[in-house]
């Protein structure tokens, strides 16, 4: 049972007090993603005990949950109704929360096929940088009233508000999953990933590591087995295990001490010729790179392919962790920040030195 715990009043008071004193706050849920983004600063605002599933009727395909609720507990509540979070969020630790997941905007291996966390966020309730409670979006799948502030909160790293609760569209659990493997070069694998994604097959994952392309198929047994017949390849014995270690970064690839770069590129972009070990997922659209090359060199190479690079883990967190935006885009970001957090006290510097 998930504890029902409403800490709105305390959180609101803490934020408005900090705003009056212009004191910075770092928002912490379960603390499993403290490594991500620029170095956190300021007094800790703990949201991990603001918990509970407040609305969940499985037949509406929507769940509303308080931000501090642990991801693992939410997943269990959904699993009992044979449902799931479609964006397959990473579990970087047992305490990871849904609020932190939404704030960091992280999605797992199914992202290119089912969608990203932002695609499933239907509404949020938040406290702005003055501690005012605001509600945007709602609990319905279609809603175009007002600007889409709920999705704006996704990936904002808590810099625009403290998420109190979030309404998320859920999916039924697939009846069957199978993983097919192929020994290929990276170039061949990239080609196949893109080719397969253009065919009407129940594809929900495609990754490539150390000479092996893995494709995951999910859905009704009939559809999956028909796809297996079409695609051939060898069936992985522990497909589920591989996908979850990739999702949670517990796969041996992620154990390196070198800085980990997250390179987001067009799925059909050619192989990157950067020194360092890579892991390709998202059907080619996400390339992980362990490398000690200079950030400028990595950024320039990725930009040339139409993508962007994030220093995901390790390395120098005092500089630009996220890819710099153009001047105009950056100014728009700054003005949005000022709208939601005029005193600049919420997770200052976590996303960008000026934000």
């Amino acid at each position, binding site marked *: 049972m998930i504890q029902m715990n409403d800490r709105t009043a305390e959180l609101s008071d803490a934020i408005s007090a900090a705003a009056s004193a212009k004191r910075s706050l770092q928002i912490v849920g379960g603390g499993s993603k403290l490594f991500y983004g620029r170095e956190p600063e300021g007094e800790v605002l703990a949201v991990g005990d603001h918990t509970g599933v407040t609305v969940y009727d499985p037949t509406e395909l929507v769940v509303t949950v308080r931000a501090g609720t642990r991801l693992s507990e939410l997943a269990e509540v959904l699993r009992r109704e044979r449902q799931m979070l479609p964006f397959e969020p990473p579990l970087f630790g047992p305490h990871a929360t849904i609020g932190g997941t939404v704030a960091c905007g992280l999605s797992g291996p199914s992202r290119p096929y089912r969608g990203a966390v932002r*695609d499933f966020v239907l509404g949020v309730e938040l406290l702005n940088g003055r501690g005012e409670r605001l509600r945007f979006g709602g609990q319905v*799948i*279609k809603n175009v009233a*007002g600007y889409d502030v709920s999705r704006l909160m996704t990936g904002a790293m808590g810099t625009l508000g403290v998420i109190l609760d979030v309404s998320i569209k859920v999916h039924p659990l697939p009846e069957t999953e199978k993983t097919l493997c192929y020994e290929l070069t990276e170039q061949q694998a990239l080609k196949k990933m893109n080719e397969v994604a253009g065919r009407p097959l129940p594809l929900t994952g495609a990754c490539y590591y150390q000479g092996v392309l893995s494709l995951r198929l999910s859905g009704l047994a009939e559809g999956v087995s028909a796809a297996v017949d079409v695609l051939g390849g060898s069936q992985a014995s522990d497909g589920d295990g591989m996908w979850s270690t990739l999702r949670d970064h517990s796969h041996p690839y992620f154990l390196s001490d070198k800085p980990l770069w997250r390179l987001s590129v067009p799925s059909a972009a050619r192989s990157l010729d950067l020194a360092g070990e890579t892991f390709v997922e998202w059907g080619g659209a996400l390339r992980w790179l362990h490398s000690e090359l200079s950030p400028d060199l990595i950024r320039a190479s990725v930009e040339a392919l139409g993508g962007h690079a994030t220093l995901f883990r390790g390395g120098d967190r005092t500089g630009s962790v996220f890819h710099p935006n153009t001047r105009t885009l950056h100014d728009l970001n700054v003005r949005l920040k000022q709208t939601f957090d005029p005193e600049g006290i919420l997770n200052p510097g976590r996303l960008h030195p000026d934000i």
Partner: protein
Amino acid sequence: MKVGNVTSNTGQSPRFFRALRDVLPADGLLVSDEERRPYECDGLTGYRELPLAVAMPDRLEQVEQILSLCDRHGVPVIARGAGTGLSGGATPRRDALLLSMARFSRIIDVDPVSRTARVEPGVRNLAISEAAAPYGLFYAPDPSSQIACTIGGNVAENAGGVHCLKYGLTIHNIIRLEVVLIDGEKITIGSEALDSPGYDLLALMTGSEGMLGVVTVITVRLLPIPVSAKAVLVAFDEVEKAADSVAKLIATGVIPAGLEMMDNLAIRAAEDFSDAGYPRDAAAILICEVDGTEAEVDRQIELTTSVFASEGAIDIQVSATEQERQRFWSGRKNAFPAVGRISPDYYCIDGTIPRQQLGRVLAGITELSSTYGLRIANVFHAGDGNLHPLILYDGAQPGEFERTEELGGKILELCVKAGGTITGEHGVGLEKIDQMCVQFESSELEHFHGVKAAFDPRGLLNPGKAVPTLARCAEFNAIHVHDGRIPFPDIDRF
């Protein structure tokens, strides 16, 4: 609201018009009454106004220069696509330049490998799927106006369609936008990759109703065309049973590609119009489409029909051929014109509710219908809770349109009370500006104004639409508490 038919476009400096002429092609500036007349309204035809002038650029540089000119001269700009929008998002103002993007109608390229297409905003929605079809791909959002509506307008409204539950809205199917800001600077939002650094401006732009910038290029995602699709036509003798069966169906884990409901008045109108084979005496019908491989479709048909049977359906037909599937849909797809035939005018409402509230909300709508003495036909995207009550009225009867509008407002407020929203896919525009005051608190509206100001500090893009001023809401709420009647219906709503 009464809008005067102002026929002169004086008030703007001749210098502004001279500069506009210099920027635009010879036939690209419409100023005479006859030329401006076709632009006096969009799909919300109850509101009409001649624009200051209509600019029809055909190159990006012209758009940049026009916006920069408007910015310097302080002239408001309203962007327009095909003008099919139903909420008045493109309703002109006499002091604003109407910027028609119709000449930006090029499909720049279709990339079958990365499954994307780059298109200009004036490209019709359906034309994208037509261009992608040779590669076995399609563009998923399919608003019912898809033959005519443009992708630029779809982005502005975050358009949906009948396949949203499975395939998502516009926001889920676009990845990159080129946008010109009010000062004439072009920016790129999103990318060909699956995400971008910084705040999710793509989400803000989508559905922003032309308030933040003018979109000039859109990169859309294309999906593989399913191998097979079948539709089930199900009849019920009670609306409640139809609604319950939808919940039961979702509980089995099937996500239909489309799931539509119509009530008896809508059924009869549609049947008279299109011979779709709907049972005329049913209280409600459902059209449920499933897609996938042949085997998946057969299995889903088995699951859905057994749910409908156990929920007390009085008739279940499964499409045996593609022709029959199209026939099942024909009635639904023509529901609006069909209703147009049984009434001199109709007014389409667009609320969304949690599906479990359907019975309650429909009962409320029936009650309002009799209070106002106006018939209502209900068409419902049952899968995603998006309700389209069609109010039948006669615009020639004095006061009937005003009564219809008021009834529409009441229905939207009912949707908000049921935990839903005032607009699922048509946008706020001018039409629902007062109901925004019901859905949002002033502090929330202030944040919307802040978002607007971040992009358009002087408020020149589509002013007066989408987000009401706090003053307007104070007035609306104050009056609203009494009897919902606006004492000065003639005051300017902008």
